[in-house]
């Protein structure tokens, strides 16, 4: 396990520890502090992937987030993670990674044959063909395209790791811990401000490694000593949002084979910052020249990083192609590390750095450029020529070609924060302009070069951001001029890539322009330039410049594609955090839930609630048996249902009655104390909103119930009208849904049952008639008894403070035992209400009027109420609108289904639909409710209920929706 390309000394790696890892099944060695990329380079691995479209061989191109090529499937099994950048994977013992997008192997990739027909695969080729025959798209072309595109393979298995989210607040957020960010944080921290420093890298001050380790260590020590400073390494700020809120993902345990128990793999931070300092550094950009994608071509700064930080020589013989002096420093770093110098190719005639290079004995070809490269799976050399001279090229042998076309400040986050970008002539790139929000850009992100200058810029920003100041030591450096001679592309034979990941060439951009896709956003979409996982960090501006030339415009006028989140791709699971599985949404449980569980109820979801659907008994052979048994008990004897889920609102105040009069279609001010009334509520547009009973407990005190689903919305509706429309009213509102458990005791034996247990209340029909309400006790527990009925039977509702629910419930069951009492669930509740023709959410679905469901009589004669006026619109009063009717199959046993449509026999024209069906207990077979055009006039006629989805067609009879006791006598006995 030798590492032939490892230098003897230097770098922030722990040479005392050797880690073994696998890439494409082969075992290699590296050290703590390595990335997968640096370790592979140390082992001499050059070929690491295949390109997206042409499947060209690719090597490691960068050393950080801008890497376009070196993507791997990391880990195995359910933890497999495609497209992971090798340049950011921290090495750990036993790491396993595999190259992707190749078949059968990385060296022998069949689809590299695409290269042969590359001219056909020009940008947008798929828009021009694959159209014949039409049916071939889904069957032939698309599957082929889908299979050959995409990058790595998803695991397709549930993720075994956990994730977390956390909220944070700070005065100053510094993004990036380069020299500028560290200086900014140090100054802001010294002022006492709450500072957070986020750095995507696992090292803080990484750019300083090998340059000024002393300053770096001293600064980190000073920061670590400040209690008001939070340092977050391994944390990428992925997006900047309104109000200086940013999202960031911390890779808590990605550097370990597996997260330790209870530790999240990644953590999503939502950070609310007073001010933000963007110290995000810069991305070096490449130059597009023919075959600029061969393994061995690398960004100059990246090569220097491999040497200085990782102690790895990325090659044996290096050639530099650069148009700026700063890039020479990168080459010198390699030179100092003993890499053989093949020379420097520079389009500029002369520069101070050229002189310095020559002084080092390095050959410099001035006014020259690289016009091509040679090699197959790895670089063997570059062809160079003088600028402007045709045909006279020299082949220079090299296994490493460093490229630098200048640097682009990492303005992504600033731009997302709406900071305008200004064009810098000397740097030939975009730099941040005057921010709109309370933000600053510092250091390389601000177009400042040189360690000392960047630190000073950071310190200034830290002071401005914190509103204070502090003197700090600055690092020393040998400044290099970052000015560039703009050079975007060297034309010649061979593909000059402007997007190395997505295989977009300069010719593709020109073709887009020629075909009219000239706007930068059109060219992007037509060619997919900057649409890969690196979002064009190193080639975006290059492509824009090629487009500018094709359009005969300045780069400045062409602009850049919009910078959007995410600065780096964001793990899906991290954002979800713990809010998955049962934690995706909270579950609401009735106070009687434990009892239902003990009684082995079958539960169903009702919004957030879990409610018993029915209670199976040994005698039941299926669910329907249970439901029918429960409903029969309610019709023939007595049964009890948990209705604690109903919304309950306490309304008090001198104007409470007046307030309710304005919200409900009917009147409450004339409701007697101790009485309840059914109420109907509309939206302002005249459509039914909710219904429920309201009881008057005192002159100024009402107890309102709502449907389970609308408990929250009705409360909010009331608060809206109270606070914004009638704020002068003396009314208070309080939700008491959770305070009160409620149970409905229904059936001819209901009075006999509860009379045994309700103390302090005469329950006789005379003393406590239908719609009466009174307080009492059961087994010493306070209760409120309502004589109201949803089932259509004589019925009572007993409400009790939630903690007493089980006591009261058990008392009811014991009292009813002699009458064969049964608990009943939501299914039986539905059965009973359908038999009775009561409407629920299935009919009151936000589309129906009061008249549609037969409740038009609930409109009071006089007075305003919400929805009254707009309910009168012709479209809502049209007599032909679907109206509520009842249904019975002609052959009684035939099953109907909710969602069937009603048609005239033999027709397929829908005239209505079934809202609810059930098997009945008071009648034979199935019954249903439906909304039917001209419903009232069709009662007595026959139609068909059709469900083509089920292949079902049932002859039905249209009947009144009130199957049971239409006179409403039972409730009054």
């Amino acid at each position: 396990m030798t590492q032939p390309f490892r230098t003897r000394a230097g770098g922030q790696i722990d040479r005392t520890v050797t880690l073994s890892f696998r890439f494409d099944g082969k075992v290699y060695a590296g050290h703590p502090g390595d990335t997968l990329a640096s370790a592979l380079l140390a082992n001499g691995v050059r070929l690491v992937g295949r390109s997206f479209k042409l499947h060209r061989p690719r090597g490691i191109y960068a050393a950080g987030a801008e890497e376009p090529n070196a993507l791997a499937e990391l880990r195995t099994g359910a933890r497999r993670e495609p497209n992971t950048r090798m340049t950011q994977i921290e090495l750990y013992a036993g790491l396993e990674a595999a190259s992707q997008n190749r078949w059968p192997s990385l060296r022998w990739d069949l689809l590299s044959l695409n290269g042969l027909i590359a001219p056909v695969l020009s940008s947008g080729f798929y828009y021009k063909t694959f159209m014949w025959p039409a049916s071939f798209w889904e069957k032939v072309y698309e599957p082929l395209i889908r299979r050959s595109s995409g990058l790595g393979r998803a695991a397709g298995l549930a993720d075994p790791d956990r994730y977390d989210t956390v909220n944070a607040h700070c005065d100053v957020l510094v993004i990036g811990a380069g020299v500028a960010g560290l200086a900014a944080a140090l100054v802001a921290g010294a002022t006492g401000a709450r500072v957070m420093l986020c750095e995507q890298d696992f090292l803080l001050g990484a750019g300083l490694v090998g340059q000024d380790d002393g300053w770096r260590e001293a600064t980190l020590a000073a920061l670590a000593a400040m209690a008001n400073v939070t340092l977050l390494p391994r944390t990428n700020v992925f997006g900047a949002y309104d109000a200086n809120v940013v999202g960031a993902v911390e890779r808590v345990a990605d550097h370990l084979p597996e997260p330790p128990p209870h530790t999240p793999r990644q953590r999503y931070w939502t950070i609310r910052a007073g001010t933000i300092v963007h110290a995000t550094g810069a991305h070096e950009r490449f130059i597009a020249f023919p075959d600029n994608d061969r393994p061995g071509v690398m960004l100059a700064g990246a090569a220097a990083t491999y040497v200085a930080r990782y102690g790895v020589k990325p090659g044996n013989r290096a050639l530099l192609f650069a148009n700026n002096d700063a890039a020479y420093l990168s080459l010198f770093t390699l030179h100092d590390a003993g890499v053989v110098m093949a020379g420097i190719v520079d389009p500029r005639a002369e520069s101070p750095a050229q002189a310095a290079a020559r002084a080092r004995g390095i050959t410099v070809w001035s006014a020259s450029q690289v016009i091509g490269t040679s090699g197959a799976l790895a670089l063997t050399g570059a062809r160079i020529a003088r600028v402007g001279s045709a045909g006279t090229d020299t082949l220079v042998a090299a296994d490493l070609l460093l490229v630098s076309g200048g640097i682009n400040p990492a303005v992504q986050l600033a731009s997302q924060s709406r900071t305008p970008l200004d064009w810098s002539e000397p740097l030939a790139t975009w730099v941040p302009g005057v921010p709109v929000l309370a933000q600053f850009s510092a250091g390389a992100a601000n177009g400042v070069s040189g360690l000392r200058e960047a630190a000073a810029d950071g310190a200034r920003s830290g002071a401005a951001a914190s509103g204070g100041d502090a003197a700090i030591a600055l690092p020393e450096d040998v400044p290099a001029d970052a000015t560039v001679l703009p050079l975007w592309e060297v034309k010649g034979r061979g593909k000059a890539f402007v997007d190395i990941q997505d295989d977009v060439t300069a010719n593709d951009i020109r073709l887009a322009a020629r075909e009219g896709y000239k706007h930068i956003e059109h060219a992007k979409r037509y060619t997919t330039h900057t649409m890969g996982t690196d979002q064009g960090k190193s080639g975006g501006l290059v492509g824009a410049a090629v487009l500018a030339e094709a359009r005969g415009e300045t780069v400045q006028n062409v602009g850049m594609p919009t910078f959007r989140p995410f600065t780096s791709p964001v793990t899906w699971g991290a954002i979800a955090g713990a809010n998955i599985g049962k934690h995706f949404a909270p579950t609401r449980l009735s106070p009687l839930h434990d009892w239902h569980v003990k009684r082995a109820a079958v539960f169903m979801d009702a919004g957030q609630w879990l409610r018993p659907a029915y209670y199976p008994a040994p005698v039941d052979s299926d669910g329907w048996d249970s439901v029918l048994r429960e409903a029969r008990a309610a019709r023939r004897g007595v049964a009890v249902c948990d209705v604690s889920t109903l919304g309950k609102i306490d309304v008090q105040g001198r104007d409470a009655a007046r307030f309710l009069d304005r919200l409900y279609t009917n009147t409450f001010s004339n409701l007697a104390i101790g009485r309840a009334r059914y109420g109907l509520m509309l939206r302002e547009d005249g459509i039914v909103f909710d219904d429920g009973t309201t009881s008057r407990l005192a002159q100024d005190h009402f107890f309102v119930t709502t449907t389970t689903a609308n408990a929250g919305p009705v409360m909010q509706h009331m608060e809206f009208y109270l606070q914004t429309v009638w704020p002068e009213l003396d009314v208070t509102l309080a939700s008491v849904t959770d305070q009160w458990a409620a149970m409905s005791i229904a059936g001819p034996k209901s009075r006999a049952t509860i009379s045994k247990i309700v103390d302090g209340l005469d329950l006789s029909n005379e003393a406590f008639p239908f719609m009466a309400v009174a307080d009492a006790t059961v087994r010493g527990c306070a209760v409120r008894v309502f004589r109201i009925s949803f089932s259509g039977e004589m019925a009572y509702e007993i409400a009790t403070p939630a903690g007493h629910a089980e006591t009261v419930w058990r008392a009811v069951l014991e009292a009813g035992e002699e009458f064969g009492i049964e608990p009943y669930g939501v299914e039986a509740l539905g059965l009973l209400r359908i038999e009775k023709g009561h409407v629920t959410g299935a009919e009151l679905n936000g589309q129906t009027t009061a008249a549609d469901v037969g409740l038009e009589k609930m409109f009071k004669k006089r007075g305003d109420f919400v929805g009254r006026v707009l309910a009168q619109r012709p479209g809502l009063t049209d007599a032909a609108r679907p109206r509520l009717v009842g249904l019975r199959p002609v052959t009684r046993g035939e099953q109907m289904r909710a969602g069937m449509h009603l048609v005239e026999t033999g027709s397929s024209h829908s005239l209505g639909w079934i809202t609810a069906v059930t098997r009945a207990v008071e009648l034979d077979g199935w019954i249903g409710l439906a909304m039917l055009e001209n419903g009232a006039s069709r009662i007595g006629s026959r139609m068909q209920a059709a469900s083509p989805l089920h292949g079902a067609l049932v002859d039905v009879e249209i009947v009144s929706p009130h199957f049971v006791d239409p006179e409403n006598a039972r409730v009054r006995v």
Partner: protein
Amino acid sequence: MSVSNHSGSNHSGSDLLAPGAHGAVGGEPVRIALRSCDVVQVLARKGRAGDVAAALLGALGLVLPGPGHAADGRGASALWVQPEGWFVVAPRGADGALASAIKAACGDAASVIDQSHGRAVVSISGTRAAWVLAKSCRVDLHPSAFGPGRVASTQLFHLAATLHQTDAVPSFDLIVFSTFLRSFLESLTHAAEETGYVVA
């Protein structure tokens, strides 16, 4: 007819709070407990906030706090929860007694609503309690922004909750809707596994 495969169990959530240490070991755990409290909602009627204040001062020695604050009185605390609206929280007493006492004191100056069964009070305490809460709490609980005696109604784990910091440890009382208690505890204890938590 269709039903889900949910089972659901123990609504009170007490099974989730089995005494002992849970989650990660090594660091300092947080303490989580269910507190047995009465909670009474007091909403001043229009223009009667002064009367309510006087009544509660007399009855419970409570100086009604303003927005974002709590105040302690004789055996009870008042938490501001909405304009001219407070929660009066006290250790659990006879059923309905606290509400009756407040009602008697306030007369028609306030709507007095017993929520003792409608709210549950969960306490969390420990040096890392704010960290555990920050996993879902969007309100800044840093000592420079919050502190003992401070109250915030906000969202925790998708649920409306009122948060009351009771001391500088820090300790927090979390007042949540009782029908969501189990779900709340599931999420809270899940969040506390990282620091580890102890149930006394």
